[in-house]
């Protein structure tokens, strides 16, 4: 029983926090709102120099081959800083898919460039009216002799304007075995990007595919295995995202706590009122529990434990909610001034919520956890 980070992880955390304080300051976060690219090149370069872009990738591809706990450490910092950069999209999900199921040629082409910060890949996943399950994938891909022909739309594609490839989930047949994942060049003929205005004002796009041709060699994994590999990598997404929720909430709590000590009403700091203090105590309790849940899921992955999938979903579910509680509480503590754009808490509040519905949602994860417990025989 040891719930502490090791010395290397503490060093990683501290050095990343220091770099982000400079390169991903609130000023930078604000400047990236409504920006079509969505991240500063200099920040991306700094992340690559620190090894963050290739954190969990194998050393043969220029990665650092670190584990899931290290990934959680990094994502808590990215959350604290609201770091505007496609680490989740490129290094966790896209690189994860290629590392898990890609051909040797795909690995050689993309993984070293991702690790070096020279390529951005982003998933094109969700569709309008669709769920987070396999049934949500309806973008049609017809296989022909020269490749797939894609027709349809993807929504909420983050950092698409900067992407070298759109990692696109397409439907080739019935059921979950009728889903493939393709590497689509956004500059290919028939691909159109339309900027979306979102809750978090980040760089998301509606992508239209009009008879887009994708070579067969650009499919990741065997035909019909797309949903399986997407679900496997989804577990790493959950750990990373869970840690991000914790970091985002922890920083929001710090802002609100500081304000509660300084803001005077009725001749005393408002933090001396239990009505205020107890809300902050509840935020702190939820954040502490969520951090342990995140670390336990990450530890379970690194220790190859069978309950990792359930723990990853559990961590996401709790961290998302405790993050929502803490960021809403932050809004309440800051009162009227927190409702203005001038104050920073609203940046955390909006991003927490957006991340709760961007990759997976509560209902999907609850279904999964319930099945593991009721039919899976787990406790």
């Amino acid at each position, binding site marked *: *029983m040891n719930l502490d980070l090791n010395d290397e992880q503490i060093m990683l955390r501290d050095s990343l926090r220091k770099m982000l304080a400079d390169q991903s300051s609130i000023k930078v976060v604000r400047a990236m709102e409504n920006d079509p690219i969505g991240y500063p090149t200099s920040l991306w370069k700094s992340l690559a120099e620190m090894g963050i872009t290739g954190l969990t990738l194998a050393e043969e591809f220029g990665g650092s081959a670190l584990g899931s706990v290290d990934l959680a450490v990094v994502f808590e910092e990215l959350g604290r800083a609201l770091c505007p950069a496609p680490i989740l999209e490129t290094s966790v999900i896209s690189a994860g898919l290629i590392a898990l199921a890609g051909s040797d040629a795909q690995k050689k082409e993309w993984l070293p460039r991702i690790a070096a910060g020279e390529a951005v890949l982003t998933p094109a996943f969700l569709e309008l009216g669709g769920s987070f399950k396999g049934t949500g994938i309806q973008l049609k891909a017809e296989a022909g002799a020269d490749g797939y022909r894609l027709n349809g739309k993807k929504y909420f594609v983050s950092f698409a304007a900067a992407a070298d490839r759109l990692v696109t989930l397409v439907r080739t047949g019935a059921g979950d075995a009728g889903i493939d994942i393709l590497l689509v060049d956004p500059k290919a003929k028939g691909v159109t990007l339309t900027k979306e205005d979102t809750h978090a004002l980040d760089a998301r796009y509606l992508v239209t595919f009009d008879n887009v041709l994708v070579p067969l060699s650009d499919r990741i994994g065997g035909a019909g295995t797309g949903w399986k590999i997407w679900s496997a990598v989804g577990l790493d997404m959950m750990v990373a995202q869970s840690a991000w929720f914790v970091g985002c909430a922890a920083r929001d709590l710090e802002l609100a706590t500081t304000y509660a000590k300084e803001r005077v009403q009725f001749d005393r700091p408002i933090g001396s009122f239990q009505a205020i203090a107890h809300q902050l105590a*509840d935020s702190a309790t939820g954040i502490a529990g969520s951090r342990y849940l995140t670390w336990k899921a990450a530890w379970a992955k690194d220790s190859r434990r069978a309950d990792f999938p359930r723990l990853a979903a559990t961590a996401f579910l709790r961290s998302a909610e405790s993050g929502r509680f803490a960021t809403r509480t932050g809004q309440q503590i800051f009162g009227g001034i927190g409702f203005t754009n001038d104050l920073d808490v609203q940046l955390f509040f909006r991003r927490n919520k957006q991340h709760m519905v961007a990759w997976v949602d509560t209902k999907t994860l*609850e279904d999964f956890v319930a099945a593991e417990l009721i039919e899976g025989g787990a406790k």
Partner: protein
Amino acid sequence: MDFEFSPEERAWEEEARAYIKKCAEKPGVRVRGAEATRYIDTPARRGFMKDLAAGGYLGVSWPKELGGKGLSHRYDYLLNEICAYENAPSPGKGVGILGRSLAKHGTPEQKAYFLPKIINAEIEWAIGYSEPEAGSDLASLKIKATRDGDGWRINGQKRFTTSGHFADWYYLATRTDATGPKHKGITLFLIDLKNTPGIQINPMFCINGERTNEVFLDNVYVPDSQRFGPEGEGFKVISEALDFERHILFPHSYQQRIFDKFLEWVRTATRDGEPVRNDPAVRSAVAKLSVLLEEGRLHSYSVVALEGYEAAVAAAMTKITSSELFQHMANVITTVVGPETMLRIDNEGAIEEGLFELIHRAGVILTIGAGGNEIQRNIIARRGLGLPNPT
């Protein structure tokens, strides 16, 4: 980072569980189904404590010179969790709350008399903290102890002295100085409940079926040799005792056991001939509870893993999380399971010996006792977040 107990700890736990299961199966020992009480209040349960002592499971984390095993506090935690999960009686206040305090503050005579009796399960304790006017604000307690020759005279009233009607000894907090700040001027005494004149114990019955007591002390004489710790320093001693034992104050296994029983019900029960596990609302309830349960487990682990100042905040978080989960779970389970949760134990149709009925009553005290949850939130706000004291 490691969320698992060591192989040695797990092996010890397995052995302990087998032993405790066996001892708990003797008639009258195991807390039957829905009964909430885990007190050592009958000869059979005293026998269980004797069995624990004989097996070497009392005072496992006490130093060897006190008759303990000198193991880490993680073994205490595991033992406490086993007893809670197996519905066995709770290992008791002596080894749990008093022992280390006695070892630190007791006189040589007190240590020589009490410590062997505690570790051999020959003595049961009642704790006298609360009063009618001193609940969450414990330091405002009023019961008066005044010097009388070589001893003290005690006059006043205590409330919520659970175990008072069967305990052998009373660990009593009194006021010996009412002139200074209220945290000062509190003095502790050890009182022989069976052989001291002037003590009247009246029952108060609780909604969970347990008995607690009001205790009236009328000119009770106590020799100074039974004063415990320095005069006026009682509050400090009480707070320290909490530090020693905070990792076992609130077993996670209570909630785990209830959840496991609920899960079993979900897997097997039907409504109108349909398996309830097919109901999306039931599945969602299972998932939601499981998330909070896992969080509660890790909060309690954090108290085991941390020390000192950090542990005090972690313990407050654990207490809040566990007690509120218990109540939430009771509300959700009674809502999901439905009409049968009206039935108390021994009625036709009662589920799990009325467990799901009982928890809705029994849970009420958990957010109140052992430091109300409002007090716990104050601890987190002040010690954890550094917020100013309320004015």
